[in-house]
């Protein structure tokens, strides 16, 4: 049985708890054991905290990695931002004695050490690579005939030189995962365009971020998609929170919520009341 330390991050537990709930339920249904990564903090966010102070970013990330190392488990994230930070930090530290020595100078202050052994995984990629689309299909009890727009976001697949999960310009794994539920992923223009929220853009220049989002929404609507399926609570927040102002009305679901539905979870348990764009199923 696959077993992971479940890294919650910030936006899922504190804004869209339905994503956390759905992930727990879906993993249970797929025989993936999740152990809470108690005491973890923000990853910390790659576009803001890392941009402010790389030393703080790396040390706080190393603390999170060390918490998982103490449990002897790989980390599983449900957010591209967390995945970006923790994967990058592990890439920088694991097998690099000099970088480890430097970060451990900081961790020593709190009586911790990171040895450099934690592996970092993303929920969607765990489902694709460890469980597989065929096994997922067997667990679908309520096939969904939705036409959907899949949204990969940026930090799930990129930088592909170190992540190596799929073609970053023309990927398919999320489409395959979504279609395992019976839904249809609608092809569209500029599918890999950033949602606009990353890199601190949403906070500093919200109007610029909205322009990215608007282009995405226009292309999604033109494709005939009725729902947006994401793998990142921050993209989720950007699409969910912006549509009212931009005049769109496409419900936004994290992959875990789509899977929860397809595997028989009640709508109640998906935590849809936290969504700003109403979710009509």
């Amino acid at each position, binding site marked *: 049985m696959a077993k992971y330390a479940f890294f919650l991050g910030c936006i899922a*537990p504190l804004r869209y708890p339905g994503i956390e709930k759905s992930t727990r339920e879906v993993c249970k249904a797929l025989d993936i054991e999740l152990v809470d990564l108690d005491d973890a903090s923000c990853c910390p*966010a790659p576009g803001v905290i890392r941009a402010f*102070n*790389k030393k703080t970013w790396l*040390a706080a990330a190393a*603390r999170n990695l060390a918490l998982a190392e103490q449990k002897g488990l790989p980390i599983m994230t449900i957010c591209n931002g967390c995945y970006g930070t923790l994967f990058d930090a592990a890439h920088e530290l694991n097998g690099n004695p000099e970088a480890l020595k430097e970060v451990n100078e900081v961790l020593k202050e709190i009586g911790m050490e990171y040895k450099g052994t934690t592996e970092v995984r993303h929920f969607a990629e765990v489902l694709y690579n460890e469980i597989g689309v065929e096994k997922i299909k067997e667990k679908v009890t309520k096939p969904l005939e939705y036409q959907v727009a899949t949204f990969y976001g940026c930090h799930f697949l990129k930088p592909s030189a170190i992540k190596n999960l799929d073609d970053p310009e023309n990927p398919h794994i999320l489409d395959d995962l979504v279609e395992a539920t019976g839904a249809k992923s609608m092809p569209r223009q500029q599918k890999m365009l950033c949602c*606009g929220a990353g890199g601190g853009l949403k906070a500093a220049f919200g109007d610029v971020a909205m322009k990215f989002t608007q282009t995405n929404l226009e292309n999604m609507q033109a494709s005939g998609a009725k729902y947006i399926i994401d793998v990142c609570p921050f993209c989720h927040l950007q699409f969910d929170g912006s549509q009212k102002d931009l005049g769109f009305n496409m419900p936004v679901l994290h992959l875990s919520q789509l899977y929860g539905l397809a595997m028989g979870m009640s709508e109640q348990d998906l935590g849809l009341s936290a969504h700003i764009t109403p979710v009509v199923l």
Partner: protein
Amino acid sequence: MVSPNPEFFNELTAAGAGDVKLCFQCGTCTAGCPSGRRTSYRTRKLMRMAQLGLREEILNSEELWECSTCYTCVERCPRQVPIVDIVISLRNLAVAEGHMYPNHKNTAKNFSKYGHTVPVKDDITALRESLGLPGIPPTVLASDKAKADLDKILTVTGFDKITSE
């Protein structure tokens, strides 16, 4: 008036952005940049300014903060210039000199205060409970010891300088 600073390259190297020297100015990055399409930010130009040592112009610029870190340019750059890492390093230098947007400062303060970038909200706590989840997630929010550890990391690495006024 532009003021080239020849020492800047050493500073960049120390900050982890020395690979900016690899850029040969082809413009592939700018051509595919979703931010450049919507703002006055030009990726190639920023790389050139860094090479030339236009330190003050870069650290004072709005454009430095208009990259969404989408990695489109990094995927396509024929010279494997780590563009996003360079942008991040430049931002570190800017922040160290006090260039920071108020909303970014708020995010930094949230991180200091909660150990998370967003605050706890009562309606979400209630929703968590109705879903059978602990009202407060089992993170640093639920442990004083864990929070004290994180605080220590922030102090030792100088993050408190960013959040103080």
